[in-house]
């Protein structure tokens, strides 16, 4: 059975060109870029080439790029750096819908005496800039707000927020892990001091991330040790993965406009067809300002884990905000922050596409999904009355 992978906000396939580019550096050129001999030292140039490619994708200067081990490390580093830069300031502003890499790190700081403001979102998952303005005070060391949400795909108004913060001289970090490679980002115009991205979300391998730090921003390293990354992030470089990430960014930069159009086309086709073919479905999130590859749908009267496991039988990979899939009894913090009713959270399914998905794959999901929902609703004590005739025949 062929896998139909529609879970690209979780992780992505390593692009074949990326893998090709990396292999020699896993097999033959295993040197350390810091070495004095040519065998190792020549790799320094390869790392710098990759840095330039990453910088190019987001309109940055190469020296503004710091390689890390993951999006999480980039987020943690950004927050710690801001906090250490302004030791007298003990307040951080973030949102309720951040990725755990930011959310839980802020909660961790709260236990160390920091005051954290968690901005709310409305039912579409949108932020209220006035609430942000009110939260700012002289004690605010950092504002950290994601560029795009991983669960529902909402794109936040980072430019607008950044312009407000610029006037007040407050450090602004954005977790752009879900946005980079999917929509164009230009740090020359974007008023942020720091930005995180992750390799495995852009068809590079896992285990490599980037923190962009704008020139002139105070920076304190989080991982302490050797002099790598000009003393800003210690640890021997993950050479092969960095080279892979460089290649992945080069590919993304070439095709980003075209790719985001075709992703949106496929996503819209999937979304419209499922809304049309399955009764009692709602879209979660902001359909106006949303990543082109993401749709989050709630199927009423059925539970998400059951849907995922039925899809799994057809080789279709997706994810859910249901409590049963979280490993705890708690359903998605994002959908709860949006005030989505519990009945709809339990039946929420996220499909996230990539350039490697075909129209045929989307058609296949459109073909099987209505029957899965119908059959689970037939099982459900809540499905019958509401659905009337649509569930009479198996």
């Amino acid at each position: 059975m062929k896998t139909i992978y529609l879970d690209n906000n979780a992780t992505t396939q390593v692009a074949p060109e990326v893998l090709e580019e990396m292999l020699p550096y896993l097999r033959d050129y295993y040197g350390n870029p810091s070495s004095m001999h040519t065998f190792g030292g020549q790799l320094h140039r390869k790392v710098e080439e990759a840095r330039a490619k990453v910088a190019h994708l987001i309109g940055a200067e190469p020296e503004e790029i710091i390689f890390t081990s993951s999006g999480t490390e980039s987020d943690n580093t950004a927050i710690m750096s801001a906090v250490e830069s302004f030791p007298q300031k003990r307040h951080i502003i973030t949102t309720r819908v951040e990725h755990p890499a930011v959310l839980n790190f802020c909660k961790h700081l709260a236990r160390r005496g920091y005051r954290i403001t968690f901005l709310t979102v409305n039912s579409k998952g949108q932020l209220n800039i006035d609430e942000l303005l009110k939260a700012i005070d002289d004690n605010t060391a950092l504002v950290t707000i994601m560029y795009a949400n991983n669960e529902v795909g909402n794109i936040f108004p980072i430019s607008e927020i950044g312009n407000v913060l610029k006037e007040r001289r407050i450090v602004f970090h954005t977790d752009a892990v879900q946005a980079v490679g999917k929509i164009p980002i230009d740090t020359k115009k974007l008023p942020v001091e720091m930005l995180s991205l992750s390799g495995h979300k852009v068809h590079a391998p896992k285990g490599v991330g980037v923190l962009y730090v704008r020139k002139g921003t105070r920076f304190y390293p989080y991982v302490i040790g050797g002099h790598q990354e000009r003393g800003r992030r210690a640890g021997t470089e993950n050479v092969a993965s960095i080279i892979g990430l460089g290649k992945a960014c080069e590919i993304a930069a070439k095709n980003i406009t075209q790719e985001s159009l075709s992703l949106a086309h496929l996503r819209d086709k999937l979304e419209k067809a499922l809304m049309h073919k399955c009764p009692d479905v709602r879209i979660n999130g902001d359909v106006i300002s949303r990543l082109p590859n993401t749709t989050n749908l709630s199927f009423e009267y059925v539970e998400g884990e059951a849907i995922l496991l039925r899809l799994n039988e057809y080789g279709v990979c997706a994810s859910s905000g249901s409590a049963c899939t979280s490993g705890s009894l708690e359903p998605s913090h994002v959908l709860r922050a949006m005030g989505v009713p519990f009945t709809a959270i339990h039946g929420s399914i996220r499909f996230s596409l990539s350039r490697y998905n075909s129209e045929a794959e989307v058609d296949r999901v459109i073909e099987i999904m209505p029957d899965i929902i119908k059959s689970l609703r037939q099982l459900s004590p809540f499905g019958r009355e509401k659905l009337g005739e649509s569930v009479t025949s198996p």
Partner: protein
Amino acid sequence: MWEYTEKVKEFFLQPKNIGEIENPDAVGEVGSIVCGDALRLTLKIDKETNKITDAKFQTFGCASAIASSSALTELIKGKSVDEALGISNQDIADFLGGLPQEKMHCSVMGREALEAAVAHYRGIPISVEEEGKVLCKCFNVTEEKIRKVAMENHLTTVDEITDYTKAGGGCGECRGDIEAILRDLWSLKIPEKPEKSKKLTNLRKIALIQEIIEREIRPGLQADGGDIEIIDIEGKTVTIALRGMCTGCVMSGVTVNGIQEKLRELVSDDIIVVAQ
């Protein structure tokens, strides 16, 4: 990803006895859509022999909830009502080749639906007072249910209670209460831990507790828009109240447990934190 047995997968993908019996002799309904799972069981019972001649189910829930419901119907069909009542939630889990620990509440839901159906058949009304007071408000679990499931399955920790009943898995506010129930239930069977050697005077203990709550606990709660108040300290029992955003928060049970752990670590390992 959950590790389900082949039998669970089979009963999830091709469940047996789906639907609703027309003019049933017994109906048992448990759970709710808000809690994430619900089961409606209908039975046909031969009045002469008291035998369950047919059983059907409808379930809203995850794969293991559906599989457990279907397994229940298979287990009880052809049995007399009394024989059926002898089936425990563990029997349902065993029939499926086992369930992940965190999913045991699915088998408990099956057993409960059976009890509800039999009560209905026998004309025993189930009133709220009889069921006892609701301890876990997030998942609507009564104290009586917690005691019963703990006894039947020999559960000794709050986490086990959460796995089997969901109680304490939401806001966590009731975790202290569950702990108290477990102590009460098993007090004769679990030997008390020997006293820690360093003895604190009562005054010193109270001061220490206050200091730790100020330093380690309050800032974190305030960051989430909540707050904490110490209501009373009596012997080893610290009564607190969660305020602001903590009230009714899904995580508050976890919070109380966390506070208790912290106090046990830093003050004395017999401290019990109770939320008001």
